[in-house]
């Protein structure tokens, strides 16, 4: 995957060792007590080093994937456990759930808004702090500090920041004469959505800025120089050079941001609890509610999460194909 020279072109000793194979270091004299280790064939040694990874991946990833598929076709409740197959009841019930389509619509709306604003802001910030001066390094640090917080901590912070009792925002706005009566940040469906988007932009702008800065640094200064000599102005340079050459980084950010937003949970669970009136229930929240809050129906939740998995894989395959198509 990376640094292919090391994996594809074996060095001379590597070839020698491979030829030696099970013979155990016939080419090289065994010296000292550690010769014991060399009698183990090299491929077996590789497996031994990879074994902990393999065990973890098998128990905590492969088995759960198989289990979730089994659960999705079973009558499986939180407390009573597995009560046998009932396919395709769970899938039918999940797709007819009264909150499913509102949740899908809301999640998609949230994803589009968040991705557009977040990447726009991150790109702007990356362009501003790109060069390394003392002032810009400080600026970069200030923008990156929120990324150190957990999403749950950040949501709790904004929960207090938006609250009618402790919020400093409303008094400030009133003092400036911007508003007559206090703004309710989480009270209406729209304000709850935008307040959450603001929280997410605050928390993640630094992270995506960093990713885009990596892309910007990959653009050679010569290209800019050539454009400037040809008389291109700033806007032309941005539109014709920076944006096209930054496309791989922007694509990576888009995939990460879209996937992350589609699976949003913490921020809404803490800030809005899905309210007001279930207007901010996301798909993952619906999965959680089906399994652990109220319905306690693990089979139903498993069916919905399998549907989410399939949809996400399809979407990612599409995004990757779109990416590759453009690069060709």
């Amino acid at each position, binding site marked *: 995957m990376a640094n292919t020279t090391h994996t594809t072109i074996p060095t001379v000793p590597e070839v020698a060792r491979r030829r030696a194979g099970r013979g155990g270091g016939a080419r090289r004299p065994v*010296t000292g007590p550690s010769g014991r280790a060399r009698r183990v064939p090299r491929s077996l040694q590789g497996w031994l080093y*990879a074994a902990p990874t393999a065990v973890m991946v098998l128990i905590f990833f492969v*088995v759960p994937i198989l289990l979730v598929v089994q659960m999705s076709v079973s009558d499986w409740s939180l407390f009573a456990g597995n009560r046998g197959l009932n396919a395709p009841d769970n899938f039918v019930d999940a797709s007819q759930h009264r909150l499913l389509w509102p949740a899908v619509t809301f999640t998609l709306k949230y994803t589009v808004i968040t991705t557009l604003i977040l990447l726009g802001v991150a790109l702007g910030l990356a362009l501003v702090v790109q060069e390394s001066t003392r002032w810009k390094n400080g600026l970069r640090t*200030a*923008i990156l500090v929120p990324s150190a917080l957990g999403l749950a901590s950040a949501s709790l912070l904004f929960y207090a920041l938006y609250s009618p009792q402790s919020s400093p925002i409303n008094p400030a706005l009133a003092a400036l004469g911007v508003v007559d009566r206090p703004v309710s940040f989480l009270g209406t469906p729209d304000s709850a959505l935008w307040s959450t988007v603001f929280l997410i932009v*605050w928390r993640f702008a*630094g992270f995506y800025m960093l990713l885009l800065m990596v892309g910007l640094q990959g653009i050679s200064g010569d290209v800019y120089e050539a454009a400037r000599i040809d008389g291109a102005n700033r806007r032309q340079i941005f539109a014709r050079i920076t944006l096209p050459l930054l496309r791989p980084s922007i694509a990576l950010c888009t995939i990460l941001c879209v996937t992350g937003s589609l699976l949003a949970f*913490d921020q809404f669970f803490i800030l809005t609890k899905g309210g007001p009136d279930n207007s901010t229930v996301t798909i993952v929240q619906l999965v959680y509610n089906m399994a652990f809050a109220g319905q306690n129906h693990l089979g139903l939740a498993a069916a919905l999460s399998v549907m989410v998995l399939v949809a996400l894989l399809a979407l990612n395959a599409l995004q990757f194909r779109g990416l590759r198509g453009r690069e060709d």
Partner: protein
Amino acid sequence: MTERSTGVQALARTPYYVLTGGLAILFLFPLVWAAVASVSPQGGTAQTDGWGFGNYETLATFQAGIGRYLLNSTVVSLLAVLFTVSISMLGGYAFARFRFPGKNVLFMITLAILMVPYATLLIPLYVLLNALGLQNSLLGLALVLTMFQLPFATFMMRISFEAVPRELEEAALVDGCGTFRALVQVLVPAVKPGLITVGLFAFLAAWNDFIAPLILISDSSKVPLPLAVANLRGQVMGIVDYGATEAGVVVLALPCVVLFLLLQRHYVRGFMSGALKG
């Protein structure tokens, strides 16, 4: 002459400094506000008049006490760091330096963890941990969090080992070291930046994780800190104690911000080199 022109330049750039300075304040404001609000007087909290640590006292005596939750979070985070660093170190070595049947399949499956939604895995994991007798346990939670870290950690360690010149390891092997001794004595010092990055990411992820303990831990005395602070909000007769919430956020954020500032240079560089190679 030059002095004067730089002065004029600086003056011309004043709007720029005001604008970008405002930007920095915008990003820092919520954090500073939380810290200040947690010790300032406010109605409906434990700190009603004068400045002080009343909110932190509420936090200290909430249910099992903040000490308990801090301990839970610390245990889970340290276990996750230990598991992630040791497993990805051995795995990265295997993927970078050995050929063995199933190598590419195992590597692809490890990376595929990234493609699967958190919630899709947590529902079967809830059932699986019960079956393994690891329900409600910090060890089970740490193992699950380690699994979520493996794609990034394994990838990072693989490229770290691949970047080490092969000659370094060959020399050790010719000198009669086994591969394990070569790993410990020669390679580990060389991949230390990668190990620190992997460990830092694992710590931050485990310390901050919310949905995994929400689903996997039901015993309220075993929950880690983020969940405890979230629970704290609705506990006191349905009235939210925002002061205690602010104090909780400060306790949660402080180690992360300090770690970030300490390791910032390293974090940003490690991240950039990793991203570039990917």
